[in-house]
């Protein structure tokens, strides 16, 4: 009986008793959720355009962030380092298309998936040999990101907002909006959706798959770089981030592999759920449940809605 009370009643009593704390927890979850959403967005872009599940998306986040910090530590001015990091992500996109995707075109999906695991492993090894294995500190002020925090009095208490978190939310919103406009309204956007729908038909109107693949991998690379900067600013930059990047998987299961709004809503749901769970239910089992709660939520989703919140319903004739 006491257990039932602790699980089903007490957490809500606590939420009601200290609403300021609840707001703080939800805000923390919201910011994590944005970053999960950005990682998932990278997956969705590539999956939509090429049907490839890019296992290396998480490492691209780390690799982008490491390039920026690594160049800065090597004495390159901050803004130049940022520009060079963008170029590195572009070079990565071109290389992946030329060396991995093009030779494997028309191979089964699982082969391409394995190839992205290869890219993942390569980037870890290459990153470590170039930038070293120790964790690094992300540069923030040097590239115009705010630091510090504001306390706002509300609901009979104080809620702390880190400025970098606010910046992350704003930048993420801007990036998603511009990607949405670009992919919905421009010629390249139409071409991208065309390739996602039908390869042969797309080729017949003169769209080159290679160009589209380079563009989506570059777009995913930019999203990864931004995510890496934001995440790095909250903790530090190391390959341990990869574990965090895998949280994009439950996000994708929730949001659907082909939906950009799904990636965002899914990210926010996962981020907020895991923080609430950790804070209010975690103590019952000794904490650290935020590492598995997202997967549990995803599993429950799979039972009832395998195509995700916004995914295309798969109807197959049998």
């Amino acid at each position, binding site marked *: 009986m006491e257990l039932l009370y602790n699980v089903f009643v007490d957490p809500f009593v606590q939420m009601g008793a200290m609403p300021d704390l609840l707001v703080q927890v939800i805000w923390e979850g919201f910011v994590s959720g944005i970053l999960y959403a950005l990682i998932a967005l990278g997956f969705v872009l590539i999956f939509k355009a090429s049907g490839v599940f890019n296992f290396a998306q998480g490492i691209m986040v780390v690799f982008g962030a490491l390039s920026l910090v690594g160049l800065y530590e090597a004495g390159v001015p901050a803004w130049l380092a940022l520009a060079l990091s963008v170029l590195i992500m572009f070079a990565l996109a071109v290389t992946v298309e030329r060396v991995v995707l093009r030779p494997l075109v028309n191979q089964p999906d699982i082969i391409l998936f394995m190839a992205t695991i290869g890219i993942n492993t390569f980037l870890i090894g290459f990153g470590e040999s170039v930038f070293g294995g120790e964790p690094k500190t992300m540069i923030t002020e040097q590239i115009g990101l705010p630091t510090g925090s504001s306390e706002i009095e509300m609901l009979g208490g104080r809620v702390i907002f880190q400025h970098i978190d606010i910046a992350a939310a704003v930048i993420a919103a801007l990036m998603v909006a*511009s990607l949405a*406009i*670009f992919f919905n*309204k*421009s*010629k*390249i*956007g*139409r*071409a991208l*959706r*065309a390739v*996602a*729908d*039908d390869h*042969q*038909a*797309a*080729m*017949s*109107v*003169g*769209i*080159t798959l290679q160009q589209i693949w380079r*563009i989506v991998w570059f777009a995913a690379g930019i999203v990864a770089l931004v995510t890496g900067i934001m995440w790095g600013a909250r903790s530090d930059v190391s390959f341990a981030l990869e574990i965090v990047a895998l949280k994009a998987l439950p996000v994708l299961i929730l949001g659907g592999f082909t939906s950009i709004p799904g990636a965002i809503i899914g990210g926010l749901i996962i981020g907020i759920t895991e923080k609430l769970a950790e804070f209010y239910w975690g103590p019952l089992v000794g904490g650290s449940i935020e590492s598995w709660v997202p997967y549990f939520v995803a599993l429950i989703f799979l039972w009832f809605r395998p195509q995700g919140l916004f995914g295309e319903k798969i109807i197959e004739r049998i």
Partner: protein
Amino acid sequence: MMDGVSEAQGNLTAADGHVVDDRIKDEIILKVDDISLSFGGVKAIQNVSFDIKRGEVRAIIGPNGAGKTSMLNCINGFYHPQEGTITYLGTARKQMRPHIAATQGIARTFQNVALFRGMSTLDNIMSGRTLKMKANLFWQMIRSGPAENEEIEHRRQVEEIIDFLEIQEIRRTPVGRLPYGLQKRVELGRALAMEPTLLLLDEPMAGMNLEEKRDMSRFIIDANEQLGTTIALIEHDMGVVMDLSDRVVVLDHGEMIADGTPQVVQSDQNVIDAYLGVSHE
């Protein structure tokens, strides 16, 4: 409508089968020379040769599995024949890439409608303008300057095609929701948006009812006569083939068994045998 068709066709050819009107030029725009294509041990096409003149409607017919679609796939570069050459607009080539074919004015439709199902009719047809749009990525990103003017200009041309095909009321509908006959029409629209020199139509009337077939016939004739598009078409409906085409190639088991005007081909014993399934011994 069909009466108009036969009448129009009636004064195109003289009694001896020679073309007399000025719609068809003497220039050969596509010449298929001794093409062979096989997949592993299966021979899809064997030593086939024929040509297409500028301005004509050329039909490719034959029983199922005759190699008709494979032939179109060779022409637009999806397949690369192992032997033989294809000469298009005076340039001979062994291999063609679909993208280059599109750049040089070869458009096509597919046997099983291949539209971008999630996109509207308008966007599907706009995608046919891809190669005509030149604004670079930068202007597209910020959606202004040249990119914006270009969108407006091409949108106007796409609206003309929509009017031409009489599909105004479905311009905003995602094509996945359209009935099959209209999907085929949108697919033709996408191909026409490329302003093709040579239009390849793979069974444009498959699965259509009589009325839809009449409409589609009319659009094909108009595309040919008004827009001056050269057309190569695969079709199973013999009535349609006889009405629409100037010359017919007949394939059977990957080999060419006849080539000539509809009248000549129709009375060819090999063709009759192929369609009736006489054995090939």
